[in-house]
């Protein structure tokens, strides 16, 4: 029976794809943008700026990309969880500690859900948080530098997917585990999963001044798959909602075995109650190894600290803190409307969308309208918490966003469309195809009390024929819709990096004014900085050679170095002495087993070179910096190991 249904779903999916391919292929009934003023709506004239920033996850690239809307232009790829040779992220000595974990140096991850910091439920543009899914981590990106400022590893977690969503005053960034695991990890038969594995939901506090993260507590939940989550807001502020699937606790062939139950759950967590419990000394400290990596804009250097324990909370120890809301058929997206009243659960295998009411939930709790329990956690009666259902809106619902005008927009993977419906009456009012198979959608501020309901970005899982072909692997892509009118209008396709899972958008004027232009040389506290050009020098400590180098248009100081020997470990500590906007310099050394450095004005970075052969080896500036960029070069003389060549350095001497 299950198999038949699976086959049916597959057939419908194929039908959906085929109908997209053959029918309304280019959107706007094949007439393209010319039939409307779509081109005008996305055109940002040369030199003009976009209205919104969109931070789009880089998916399996591990990074975070920055786009402008409505133009769809890519401004920057911010390296987060993966090494990036272009920016020396994870290659230079300063940023290597950012990729340290309890498993050692992990140079890659799968980044999923960016979320922008909020104050009073509104976007404030201080930071973007994003999760690494594979080796569970949460990163904080600073929106003055647009660089990753901090990465914290999440112990006891696996498949860090219901992350990284923040509460409405950025009190917490929340990270839930998709895969339940033995806690603590131990050698045990896989088939003993049921009843023995646990799912950790981590509440990470955020310091309001510095942004510094710390794991406040981990809630040890039953061994389900915690898929996605969102905070309550406004009236439901203080609660957090997580969708679950695999409440069957299957450990194999989940596509069948985790699709058995008619309903799974949305877990409602009263985090304020647990916070109070913890602040009063509740919870149990358990050993847990995890890395906490922090980058400093003063030292331009990251430090990695290995933590040893974490505070865990058993939900049964805090009565009234956790409830289960039955939700049909493996719900994926878990989205809360701007008023905080409605919690939408999108059952992947359900024909309808399920919307729960926060008010009804409180009432059901108060009047104990329970329908049994799961591992001691009360299950509320479905009918008593249900606000309504959106009937038969499409196939394969995934995620819902809100425009702040009473409308919701749900993405449908299988029927490949975006469906607009009215919050409260649950009627479908519009639908537009997506090309193809949309995953998440994003409205700037769509996860806050105050959405900016002008554009909707669909992030698509399949691109197929939308662009010129580039071999078997084609570009990833997103699409922009104008949602300011009654009908959605597809305006633009644009390519993205990695798989664009989710995004967070914000009006540009909130962020742009805080963007840093350079680092002040006088504030540079890097231990190997050369702050005065007169201090440029070379020092030998055993077989380590430290070059304290400066760079400014268009030379390095020193640019001639002798006395380096085969077998030495040569550290180039390079300080950019420019104090003007947009004058970075790069440096690279022939044969160095690492990337270039790309150094911003006022910054110091370090690369290591271990010369293998005697000779005279050149280095040069890699970023075209000035009319005399090609002249920005130098030489290091390498003598055989054990030779007596004197250590000396110079610039401009004969």
């Amino acid at each position: 029976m299950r198999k038949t249904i699976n086959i049916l779903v597959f057939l419908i999916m194929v039908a959906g794809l085929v109908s997209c391919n053959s029918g309304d292929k280019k959107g706007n009934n094949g007439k393209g943008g010319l039939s409307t003023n779509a081109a005008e709506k996305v055109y940002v004239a040369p030199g003009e700026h976009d209205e919104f920033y969109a931070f789009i996850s880089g998916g399996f690239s591990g990074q975070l990309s920055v786009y402008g809307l409505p133009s769809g232009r890519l401004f920057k790829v911010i390296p987060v969880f993966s090494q990036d040779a272009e920016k020396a992220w994870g290659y230079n000595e300063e940023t290597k500690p950012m990729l340290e974990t309890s498993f050692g140096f992990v140079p890659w991850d799968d980044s999923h859900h960016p979320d922008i910091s909020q104050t009073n439920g509104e976007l404030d543009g201080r930071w973007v948080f994003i999760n690494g899914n594979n080796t569970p981590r949460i990163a904080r990106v600073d929106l003055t530098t647009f660089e990753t400022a901090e990465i914290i590893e999440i112990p006891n977690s696996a498949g860090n997917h219901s992350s990284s969503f923040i509460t409405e005053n950025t009190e917490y960034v929340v990270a839930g585990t998709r895969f339940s695991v033995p806690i603590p990890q131990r050698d045990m038969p896989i088939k003993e999963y049921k009843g023995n594995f646990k799912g950790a939901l981590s509440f990470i506090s955020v310091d309001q001044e510095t942004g510094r993260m710390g794991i406040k507590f981990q809630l040890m939940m039953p061994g389900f798959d915690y898929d996605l989550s969102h905070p309550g807001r406004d009236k439901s502020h203080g609660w957090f909602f997580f969708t679950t699937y695999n409440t069957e606790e299957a450990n194999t062939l989940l596509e069948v075995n985790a699709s058995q139950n008619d309903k799974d759950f949305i877990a409602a967590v009263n985090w304020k109650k647990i916070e109070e419990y913890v602040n009063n000394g509740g919870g149990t400290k358990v050993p847990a190894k995890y890395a906490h990596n922090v980058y400093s804009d003063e030292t331009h250097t990251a430090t990695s600290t290995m933590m040893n324990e974490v505070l865990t909370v058993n939900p049964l120890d805090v009565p009234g803190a956790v409830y289960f809301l039955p939700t049909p058929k493996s719900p994926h997206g878990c989205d809360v409307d701007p008023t905080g009243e409605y919690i939408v659960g999108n059952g992947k295998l359900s024909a309808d969308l399920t919307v729960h009411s926060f008010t009804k939930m409180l009432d059901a709790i108060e009047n104990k309208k329970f329908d049994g329990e799961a591992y001691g956690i009360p299950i509320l009666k479905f009918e008593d918490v249900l606000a309504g259902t959106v009937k038969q809106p499409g196939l394969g619902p995934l995620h819902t966003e809100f425009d702040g005008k009473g409308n919701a927009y749900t993405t449908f993977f299988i029927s490949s469309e975006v469906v607009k419906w009215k919050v409260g009456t649950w009627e479908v009012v519009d639908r537009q195809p997506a090309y193809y198979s949309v995953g998440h959608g994003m409205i700037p501020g769509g996860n806050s009390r105050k959405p900016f309901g002008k554009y909707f970005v669909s992030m698509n899982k399949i691109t197929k024929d939308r662009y010129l072909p580039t071999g078997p692997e084609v570009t990833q892509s997103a699409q922009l819709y104008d949602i300011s009118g009654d009908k959605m209008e597809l305006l633009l396709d644009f390519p993205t990096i990695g798989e664009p899972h989710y995004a967070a958008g914000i009006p540009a004027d909130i962020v742009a004014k805080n963007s840093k232009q350079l680092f002040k040389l006088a504030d540079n506290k890097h231990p190997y900085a050369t702050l005065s050009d007169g201090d440029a020098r070379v020092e030998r400590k055993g077989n380590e050679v430290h070059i304290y180098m400066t760079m400014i248009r268009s030379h390095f100081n020193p640019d001639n170095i002798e006395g380096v020997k085969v077998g030495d470990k040569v550290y180039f500590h390079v300080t950019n002495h420019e104090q003007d906007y947009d004058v970075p310099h790069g440096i690279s050394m022939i044969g160095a087993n690492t990337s270039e450095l790309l150094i911003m004005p006022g910054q110091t970075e370090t690369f290591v070179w271990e010369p293998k052969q005697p000779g005279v080896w050149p280095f040069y500036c890699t970023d075209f910096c000035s009319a005399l960029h090609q002249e920005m070069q130098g030489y290091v003389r390498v003598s055989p190991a054990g030779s007596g060549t004197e250590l000396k350095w110079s610039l401009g001497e004969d």
Partner: protein
Amino acid sequence: MKSLATLAIVTLISCGGKEEKKSNEIQIGQKPAATEAPAETATSSASDTKPSETVDLTNKGIGPIKNVELSPEIDQAMAAKGMEVYKNKCMACHKPDKKFIGPAPKNILKRRTPEWIMNMILNPEEMTQKDPLAHALLKEFNGSPMANQNLTEEEARQVLEYFRTL
């Protein structure tokens, strides 16, 4: 056109030739000395006096500084602060008393107005484009642009005071 080609060759040679300068010098036309102070430059043929040696005590330059009053006595405290700023932000290109990437500031007040000097520090992009003397200096110094180091007016004034001590 011909002179441009010559200039290009000179520029190329001057870079390539640096390493083996003493023993094996190739000379085509006039070769600019990269670092030594008094030397002819490839571009100075148009006028007899080099822009760096030209004296102009009336031009105030272009920029935020319209008028600077210098006290008869040098303010040593201010000059000391200026030296700090100079050391950290200017020295990479300007040695106090010899030509380097750019000209030496020694005796600069005998050749330029205080206003011109401060405007050159504070507004180098516009100065090199619009001020004839600054434009000529860019050519004299191999097209090396004067970097805007984002000094405050106060810092630029301190540097000026430091120049008086040189």
